[in-house]
């Protein structure tokens, strides 16, 4: 934890971080068409950040991403999720109602029963909730690993 790894590992981690982030965002965004969704895609993106923590020193990583970045990611995700669920009440529906389904708008194309190639513009509030939960899970898992790693480091130096 106190020394960075060799140049081969650092270069590979730099390249792989971009591919892992793009793949994780694909899994999050296509959650209503293919297997995946918010929790799975968020865990994949958090794996990319943990790869950077392992390859570099903790001080170098904290110079790029502060702890407050991940804290704000996590709280923003949870607030957007609850806000989307509460937004159905002023419109006259129940709590958690899918009020965008069927209305011709951003995510509102209707789908009938049967096998079809997937269209991204469907499923109402489900992609919004997928993105919110994905942001929350990536913030939460990265914060856990950051706190545990700095906990080890303070034990080695302080005592």
């Amino acid at each position, binding site marked *: 934890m106190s020394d960075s790894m060799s140049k081969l590992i650092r270069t590979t981690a730099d390249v792989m971080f971009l591919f892992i982030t793009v793949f994780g965002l694909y899994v999050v965004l296509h*959650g*209503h*068409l*293919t*297997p995946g*969704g*918010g929790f799975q895609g968020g865990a994949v993106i958090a794996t990319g950040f943990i790869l950077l923590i392992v390859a570099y020193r903790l001080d170098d990583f904290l110079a790029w991403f502060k702890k407050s970045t991940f804290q704000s990611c*996590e709280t923003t*995700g*949870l607030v957007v*999720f*609850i806000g989307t*669920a509460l937004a159905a009440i002023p419109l006259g529906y129940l709590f*958690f109602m*899918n009020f965008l*389904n*069927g209305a011709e708008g951003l995510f*509102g*194309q*209707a*789908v*009938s*029963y*049967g096998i*079809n190639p*997937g269209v991204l513009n*469907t*499923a*109402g*509030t*489900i992609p919004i*909730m*997928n993105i919110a*939960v994905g942001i*929350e*899970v990536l913030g*939460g898992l990265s*914060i*856990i690993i950051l*706190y*545990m790693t*700095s*906990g080890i480091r*303070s034990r080695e130096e*302080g005592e």
Partner: protein
Amino acid sequence: MMRSKAVWFTLVVLAGGLFFAAVSLPFGNPAMSDMDDYFIVHGQEQTGANNIVTSIVFDFRGFDTLGEACVLFTAVSGVAVLFRHRKKGEDYEYE
């Protein structure tokens, strides 16, 4: 010595019960599947998603997902409480 014998006896009884249940359950023919048949037939027109599992997690049973997001948040705040840095002059009880 008596405690180790009691532990072994408990493990053997539990193993016997679990393996008997594993052999006698019918695999591949669920007994009642009315709710899942309704979800498969009506899931696409009522939620608009092709993935029935995602429509169950986020639309039909979205309240459980709300509880799960709060459990994840609580675990993260619990880890943050356990690893606070000690400031100068602040005294812990066990140091």
